[in-house]
């Protein structure tokens, strides 16, 4: 016997919330991507827990797709970030299009 299903769900919820905080409050494109990674990870955890709760292997099968989507998103996102950095010299999302960060 492990733990009740909803304990795992609440834990995944906390992890997801931490990812949301990271994505919304940091002013750095790399940290925003990291927040997305944390959120995807929390989703994968919830899928595995639901698979165990239902006694089905289906929940674990979805995790492979979550991993593949995370890998795709990160590689394309990092390629975009390096391109943006080469053209604008910054990774702050506010400074890319406007001069607001220079005024501050």
């Amino acid at each position, binding site marked *: 016997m*492990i*733990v009740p299903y909803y304990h795992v769900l609440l834990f995944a919820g906390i992890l997801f919330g931490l990812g949301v905080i990271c994505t919304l*409050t940091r002013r750095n494109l790399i940290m925003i991507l990291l927040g997305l990674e944390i959120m995807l990870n929390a989703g994968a955890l919830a899928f595995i*827990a639901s698979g165990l709760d239902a006694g089905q292997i289906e929940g674990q099968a979805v995790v492979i797709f979550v991993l593949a989507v995370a890998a795709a998103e990160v590689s394309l996102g990092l390629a975009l970030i*390096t391109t943006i950095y080469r053209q604008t010299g910054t*990774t702050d999302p506010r400074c890319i299009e406007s001069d607001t960060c220079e005024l501050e």
Partner: protein
Amino acid sequence: MTPYAVCFYLLAVVIIMTTVMAIACRNMVHTILYLVASFVGTAMMFYLLGAPLPAALEVIIYAGGIMVLFLFIVMMLKIADEKRSGQRAGRFALAGMFGSIAYLSACVLLHLLPGDAGVAMKAAFAEPARYGAFVFHRHWLSIEVISLLLLVVLIGALLLGIGDRLNRRNGKEES
């Protein structure tokens, strides 16, 4: 409390603490190292919940592949120190209040859920061979779609990488 449950709560505390440290840390390299610890902890939790193959994949792909990619990029770019965002604290308080209300209502709903959501789950173990056979029998089309997605991403990353050089060469030919 069974040893499984003790393991689960210990892992949960470790994962949440390392993730909070990662988010709060101003040094990007430290952030990534904390996140590696967090993902390894999550892999242990996958194993605990009866998913050995996803646990191995989590270590290899997340902690091994993705985080090393982040580390390379962080070391390659010269990132200026992040300025403290000048937003008022009131906005964060409002967001936190709404978020915690949603979270608390989810807690209450899960408590009131009919059925056996409150009963401890039985430990199970999905053998990797059975798991692989299941994925390739039932989800073979999705696997193909995912491989196509990875191919598209590969081409996209390649184009982004050589795009600058192509632009420069075209500019030279026109002038």
